[in-house]
């Protein structure tokens, strides 16, 4: 018995700490299907980090894909680390315990690479937390040959400038394509230059497609006031970027994103990790396609992941069965930006519902366009009395929806709702955004009006055929302009404007005929305006992030940890203002901080879309006709769908 009781992997944390902290399962690794590689036997140890709590990080498909890929590489060991929760964070600081990876329990600092996925801006202070707890210098310039290479990836790398000083490099685009090349380069240079390898590797890595090494690019700015060295050519450009250029001639001035063109012939885990502690997404995730044909003008994902590339039906059927068998999960869900646009959706969903649903496994459907097909499959997999149908009109009036190019009409929504009501549903969820460009009072009021119209439609059903009272739940977030969207130039609303709009919206709900059937909630304005600065910021914002972190900011994405005042103080100290980064209309000739990145979709197209938006003109989706966005350069996907 005793041998088994003590059959414990060597853990980085002493038992009395693990017994003290909330959910110690976050820190022990050893999950089902873990690679559990041999640290000492590997040529390269890569530590993958999701800078948020374990349950969030374990729900992320991208890490599972890359983890699986790295561990399939010869002599590479990939382990993982997540942000320690606040309770353990304090203990580790008090006792000076270095942060460790969960499987090998080895200090993060002992790894060759620390790869940090950047999924949302509000995780930036957690990046600094992970670095500091790992005893890795926060600034790239302070790191030595004894520190890992800190590399960032994920959607936020489409403008990594605010955090550029904290990273040695960024991988721009999809991770499946260049890592083998990058690791081989690393091994070669480390072998040739055991001392001083770091700077040589950074220089050489900057030549690898998709790799951006921020320290090898220089930025200068126009003076904010007259009389300086670099006067702005016109007042609008005061304080903006004057020049952004590589410091060496042999590294590229622009970095093109990496992209996988054949999604059937690439890495995809058949044995995803299954954590002991319940992940936020405790289910098998099947990524059916990448990219989106729609072209909503506020949506960054819809632009940066172009062109749309689908996985084949056969690939997905095969992976679905294998992943369910290998994990024992009781639920499978589809992942994509717009599942209704997947060419084989009906066949796939029917296959899953017919072959997998039942036998204790649920098929959870993503938000599909509400029509006869989706209502039919939904009625087969969920209890209509409990379930709800979801629409994302994003704006309250048709005028506003034309501005944002959201191709969902009032008629679609009302018709879809009435079909859902006829089939027995009585709950509708609606997602809106407040603060999009050109928004008027009428557009804000339109949110309540549209919600009420849906409720009215319900009450057209004869009383004896209704399923109780209808419940329409509308929620709104505040619009944050993002890089590589047609709205990258636009003015973002201030915190005060946002709150006024939300109050106006709320007041209008109270006036509606069916007010008792309507609910309205809105997202926090403080994090929205901050996200605005972090999303479109330049390198000068880095100092504010650093100061906010030093004041104790971590877990900013968590309402209970977020301290807005600390950020305001940090802004004040570093000269970062909401006025400059959020509340200013940028002009076409301004050099945007992310202009050196080439995501396929070009600036001219985005500018044209910005003009069309202001004129309220819509642009058709990729399958209706090519709008010439530029993603054609990748030579595949939807751009070549009907041209064999």
């Amino acid at each position, binding site marked *: 018995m005793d041998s088994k009781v003590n059959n414990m992997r060597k853990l980085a944390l002493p038992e009395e700490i693990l017994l003290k902290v909330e959910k110690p399962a976050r820190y022990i690794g050893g999950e089902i299907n873990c690679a559990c590689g041999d640290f000492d036997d590997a040529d390269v140890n890569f530590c993958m980090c999701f800078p948020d709590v374990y349950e969030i990080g374990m729900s992320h498909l991208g890490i599972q894909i890359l983890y699986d890929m790295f561990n399939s590489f010869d002599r590479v060991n990939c382990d993982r680390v997540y942000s320690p929760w606040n309770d353990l964070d304090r203990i580790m600081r008090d006792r000076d315990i270095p942060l460790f990876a969960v499987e090998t329990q080895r200090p993060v600092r002992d790894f060759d690479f620390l790869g940090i996925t950047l999924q949302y801006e509000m995780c930036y202070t957690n990046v600094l937390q992970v670095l500091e707890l790992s005893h890795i210098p926060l600034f790239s310039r302070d790191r030595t040959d004894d520190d890992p290479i800190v590399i960032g990836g994920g959607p936020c790398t489409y403008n990594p400038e605010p955090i550029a000083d904290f990273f040695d490099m960024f991988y721009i685009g999809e991770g499946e394509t260049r890592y083998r090349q990058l690791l081989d380069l690393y091994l070669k240079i480390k072998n040739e230059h055991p001392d001083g390898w770091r700077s040589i590797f950074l220089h050489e890595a900057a030549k690898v497609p998709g790799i951006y090494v921020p320290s090898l690019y220089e930025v200068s700015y126009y003076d904010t006031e007259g009389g300086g060295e670099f006067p702005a050519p016109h007042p609008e450009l005061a304080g903006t970027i004057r020049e952004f250029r590589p410091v060496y001639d042999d590294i590229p001035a622009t970095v093109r994103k990496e992209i996988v063109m054949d999604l059937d012939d690439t890495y995809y885990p058949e044995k995803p990790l299954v954590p002991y502690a319940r992940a936020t997404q405790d289910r098998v995730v099947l990524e059916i396609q990448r990219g989106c044909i729609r072209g909503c003008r506020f949506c960054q994902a819809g632009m940066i992941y172009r062109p749309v590339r689908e996985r084949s039906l056969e690939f997905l059927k095969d992976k679905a069965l294998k992943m369910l068998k290998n994990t024992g999960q009781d639920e499978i869900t589809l992942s994509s930006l717009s599942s209704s646009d997947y060419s084989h959706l009906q066949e796939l969903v029917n296959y899953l519902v017919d072959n997998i649903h039942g036998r*204790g496994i649920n098929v959870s459907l993503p938000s599909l366009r509400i029509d006869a097909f989706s209502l039919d499959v939904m009625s087969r997999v969920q209890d209509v009395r409990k379930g709800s149908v979801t629409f994302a009109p994003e704006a309250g009036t048709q005028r506003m929806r034309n501005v944002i190019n959201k191709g969902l009409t009032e008629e679609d929504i009302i018709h879809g709702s009435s079909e859902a009501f006829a089939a027995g549903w009585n709950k509708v969820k609606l997602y809106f955004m407040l603060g999009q460009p050109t928004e008027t009072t009428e557009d804000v009021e339109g949110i309540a009006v549209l919600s009420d119209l849906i409720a009215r439609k319900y009450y057209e059903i004869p009383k004896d055929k209704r399923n109780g009272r209808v419940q329409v739940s509308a929620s709104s977030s505040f619009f944050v302009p993002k890089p590589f969207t047609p709205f990258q130039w636009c003015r973002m609303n201030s915190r005060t404007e946002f709150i006024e709009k939300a109050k106006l919206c709320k007041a209008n709900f109270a006036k509606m005929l069916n007010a008792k059937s309507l609910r309205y909630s809105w997202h926090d304005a403080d994090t929205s305006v901050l996200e605005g600065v972090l999303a479109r910021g330049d390198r000068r914002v880095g100092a504010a992030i650093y100061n906010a972190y030093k004041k104790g900011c971590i877990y900013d994405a968590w309402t209970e940890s977020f301290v807005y005042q600390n950020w305001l103080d940090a802004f004040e100290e570093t000269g970062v203002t909401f006025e400059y980064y959020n509340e200013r209309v940028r002009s076409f000739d301004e050099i945007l901080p992310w202009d050196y990145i080439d995501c396929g979709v070009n600036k001219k197209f985005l500018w044209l879309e910005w003009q069309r938006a202001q004129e309220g003109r819509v642009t058709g989706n990729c399958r209706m006709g090519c709008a010439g966005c530029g993603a054609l350069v990748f030579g595949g996907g939807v751009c070549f769908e009907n041209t064999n």
Partner: protein
Amino acid sequence: MKIRIKFGKYGELKFIGHLDVMRYFQKLMRRADIDICYSKGFSPHQIMSFAQPLGIGVTSDGEYFDIEAHSTLSTDEAVRRLNEFSVPNLPVYDYRLLPDDAKTGMAVIAAADYIVRPRYPERVYFDIKKSWDEFMAQETILIDKKTSAGEEELDMKTLIYENEADEGSISFRLSCGSVINLKPETVMEKFFEFVGYEPAEFELIIHRKELYAAAGDGFISLGDMGTVIDKGFSEDDKGDN
């Protein structure tokens, strides 16, 4: 058919909680293709019930859960298959058929065996065995126990069915289950109070050894209530011979 499965919990997996253990075994049933029964409805769940939750930080040789199944493998084959898809620190030890009218382990559990040790033996200045024997030599050991009716004074001694101490550890069989559940921590708290010892935080290393139902004047382990399955069969085969 009803089946009772016995498992152990060791090493770092003592840090996963009871709900995590339940979810773990639900997934293990699917990975190992156990023909378990599901409830009806839109969110079917496995017919599975655990005898007694095990707290975070406690290891065990003898945990149980019961399932209902449509068909079964032999005991040997099922244990082999479950372990093939499980992890070494959550080993499956046994898999037995229960009578059709058997109550769940949760319903019949009456006692549990524990062994407890001090986490920091160097702090313990007294003779564990001697002090324990003195402690148990008291006529009564009164404790306040919360019941549905409020607080009630109980003689803890009547709830400690067997006990033995040596120089480094104390073993005892305690009343366990929904009626009167005596925790090893409660016993040890009372013992330290008796000795006048100030325990450290997380003073005890606790290991559970076995769970029992009442049987006549004594106890029968939950596992012994089932029978070994020599050959797999399906519910449809029943009554053929």
